[in-house]
């Protein structure tokens, strides 16, 4: 092996070391962010639950046999046992074990309610995201790849029209026509994905590598896999995380209005009933879920 090759190998291994170090750093940053979110989210949730209306009420309040001095002593004891730091520690410890308290309104454990509803929402947003990607990808392809003005105008018009309709109205239209609601989530997602996918395809279409491949006569299928999916993989993965979160945002009003028993409807129900344990529990669970998705997307693109 000559000196130049050895230098190249050393330089390459140096780059690889730096890259793996950066990946580790990124992993550590994402882990710290996740922990910070759990701690901060837990604190906000615990504070809201602790100071929610009715928290300071004790069962003895309704007992006419207890005199006011005893009642005051019981209230003081309750307040001491539930001071914010103590309550936060207990709430966080409970949350770590999967115990998010009991819903005031439904009188059931919050974690159990979330566990039951989560699959419904997950199904809705996963199908919605998948269909949204397909439709947005097709429209982006029509706008960029076909190079036909009429198709480009159609793609832009469809995307623009969908952007002008509130997701809840789409949901109602699908609900009353007995069509799958995941399609309403998909259509709400399309204009948000279309812009990014179109820009990505435009970049790929004008890249010299792709022009060379087309000139060499590479088949469209191979071009799509090697030059579009391959080159755009980092952005596509990042967009996938964003799409899931956007789909969840669209699913909330759709679930609430169309009577789908998912987490979105549960959250709205909790908000309308001012059920703080349920609201804070679902907020904490959703925040962790969203942070996890973003972290996973970032790590996948690293």
């Amino acid at each position, binding site marked *: 092996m000559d000196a130049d090759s050895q230098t190249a190998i050393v330089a390459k291994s140096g780059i690889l070391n730096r890259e793996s170090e950066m990946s580790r750093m990124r992993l550590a940053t994402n882990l710290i*962010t996740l922990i*910070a*979110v759990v701690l901060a989210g837990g604190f906000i949730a615990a504070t*809201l639950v602790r100071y929610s209306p009715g928290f300071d009420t004790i069962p003895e309040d309704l007992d006419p046999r207890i005199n006011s001095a005893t009642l005051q002593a019981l209230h003081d004891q309750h307040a001491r046992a539930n001071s914010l730091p103590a309550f936060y520690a207990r709430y966080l410890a409970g949350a770590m074990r999967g115990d998010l308290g009991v819903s005031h309104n439904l009188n059931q454990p919050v974690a159990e309610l979330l566990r039951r509803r989560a699959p419904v929402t997950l199904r809705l947003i996963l199908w919605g995201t998948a269909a949204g990607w397909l439709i947005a990808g097709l429209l982006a392809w029509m706008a960029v790849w076909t190079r036909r003005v009429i198709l480009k105008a159609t793609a832009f018009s469809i995307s*623009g*029209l969908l*952007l*002008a*309709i*509130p*997701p*809840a*109205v789409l949901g*109602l239209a699908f609900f*009353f026509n007995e069509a799958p609601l995941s399609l309403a989530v998909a259509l709400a997602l399309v204009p948000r994905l279309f812009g990014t996918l179109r820009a990505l395809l435009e970049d790929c279409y004008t890249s010299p590598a792709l022009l060379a491949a087309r000139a060499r006569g590479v088949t469209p299928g191979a071009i799509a896999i090697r030059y579009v999916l391959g080159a755009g993989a980092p952005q596509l993965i990042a967009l996938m995380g964003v799409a899931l*979160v*956007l789909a*969840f*945002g669209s699913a*909330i*009003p759709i679930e*609430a*209005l169309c009577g789908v028993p998912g987490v*979105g409807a549960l*959250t*709205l129900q*909790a*908000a*309308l009933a*001012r059920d703080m344990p349920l*609201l804070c529990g679902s*907020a904490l669970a*959703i*925040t962790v879920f*969203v*942070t996890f998705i*973003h972290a996973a997307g970032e790590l996948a693109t690293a």
Partner: protein
Amino acid sequence: MKKAAVGVLILVALCALFAPLIAPYDYSRQFRESPGVAANSQFPMGTDDLGRDRFSRLIYATRISILLAPAAALVSILLALLISAITATRAAWADHALSGFTALCMSLPWIFLFIILRALLPLNTQPMESILITFGLMGIAGWAWPARIFTASIREMTNSGWLAQARASGMQPRRIALIHAWPHLRAVAAAQFRALLPAYILSEASLGLLGLGVAEPLPSWGNLLAELQHPDRIQSNPWILAPLALLMLVMICLEVIQ
């Protein structure tokens, strides 16, 4: 195309501004003898279940939705500017903490954030209070998106030669901000304002449908859209779709001028 869109928006804004002159009746006036009637010469779009003129309510709803969404967008922009100025010019730890918080706020679904904030405030409010709460919360909750753009712009500015020169010449920070920084940020702020406006109009519509927006009897596009939950009535009175059509028209015009 852009000129036509601007024309339509100006027309809608004028209708909203001069609502009392255009609307034949007050938005809350009930015609108890004619609830739920179809369009006729007296009521151009018919009446709702409570006998209120749909056309008048639509005109007044436009006033609320189209005039208050810019106000909410302005609140978001001002808040974002303030937070970005702190983020970009303070110590690294503050920068990291605020950037992390911004990223978290951006990543959470907007409507979810709003539902949580709305639940912390009284739900049974006076109609005027509900307007302030709805649009105020939108303004407060929507700061994260423009803040990220502003922070990047301010950071770029703080590293620029002209700002260093202004500092070296002993200019007061307030003067630097007003004379040097603001003209640079104005264009970015205008672009962000234009981006937030349709988002807020759409959000108000979604919140109104969920019953978390502007309270009755005040009309807004959101609570007028709630009638869409009764599709059987649409066939007998297609004017129920008028708020949706107007909302879509305004949204499309806003997209065109962006």
